[in-house]
């Protein structure tokens, strides 16, 4: 099979570019700790409201300015709703669902993960800017999907 010289160069550049993307992504994911949300913990979806810590959704202070947020996503809302944290707080979100698959996204940030019944998923974010951040469900979950949202206020 004969390749024109330009095609050889093009494919070499193409493969090189893709290899560069892979290298950068690997370093960023595995050496800089920014791998995608892949929590392996599991939970009985029928028992969510009775299983700690999801039986009492809310913010728990775990450090100087760090909080764990244990939340549930359900049709059609989040618990707790309307959270508030101080400026500069790092929040570790841990979310599960007692019903169908939902999404958990904070527009303008990288917080964007799937919430699957039977599983717990997590992401962390440090709120460096004040404001009222929108948390919305971005995975179709039924008739009320478009109202499924809450906010987290950073003062």
């Amino acid at each position, binding site marked *: 099979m004969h390749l024109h010289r*330009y095609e050889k160069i093009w494919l070499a550049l193409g493969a090189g570019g893709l290899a560069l993307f892979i290298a950068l992504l690997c370093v960023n994911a595995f050496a800089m700790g920014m791998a995608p949300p892949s929590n392996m913990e599991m939970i009985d979806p029928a028992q969510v409201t009775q299983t700690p810590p999801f039986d009492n959704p809310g913010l728990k202070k775990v450090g100087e300015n760090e909080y764990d947020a244990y939340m549930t996503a359900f049709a059609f809302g989040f618990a707790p709703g309307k959270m508030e944290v101080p400026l500069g707080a790092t929040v570790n979100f841990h979310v599960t669902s007692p019903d169908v698959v939902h999404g958990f996204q904070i527009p303008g940030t990288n917080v964007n993960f799937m919430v699957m019944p039977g599983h717990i998923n997590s992401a962390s974010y440090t709120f460096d800017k004040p404001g009222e951040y929108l948390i919305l469900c971005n995975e179709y979950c039924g008739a009320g999907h478009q109202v499924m949202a809450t906010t987290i206020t950073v003062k």
Partner: protein
Amino acid sequence: METRTESQHQAKPTQPEQENLKGTFAAVLLVGAFILLSWFGVFALFLNRA
């Protein structure tokens, strides 16, 4: 594969090498540049939002 022009079988190296493909090369490099720029743009957005 045999084509209907098999009577014109040439002993020279295959057809592509004789062709002027400078425009093709320029065009694919532009495509490659578009891919690189858009990828790094979103990567920068990702790093910035972290």
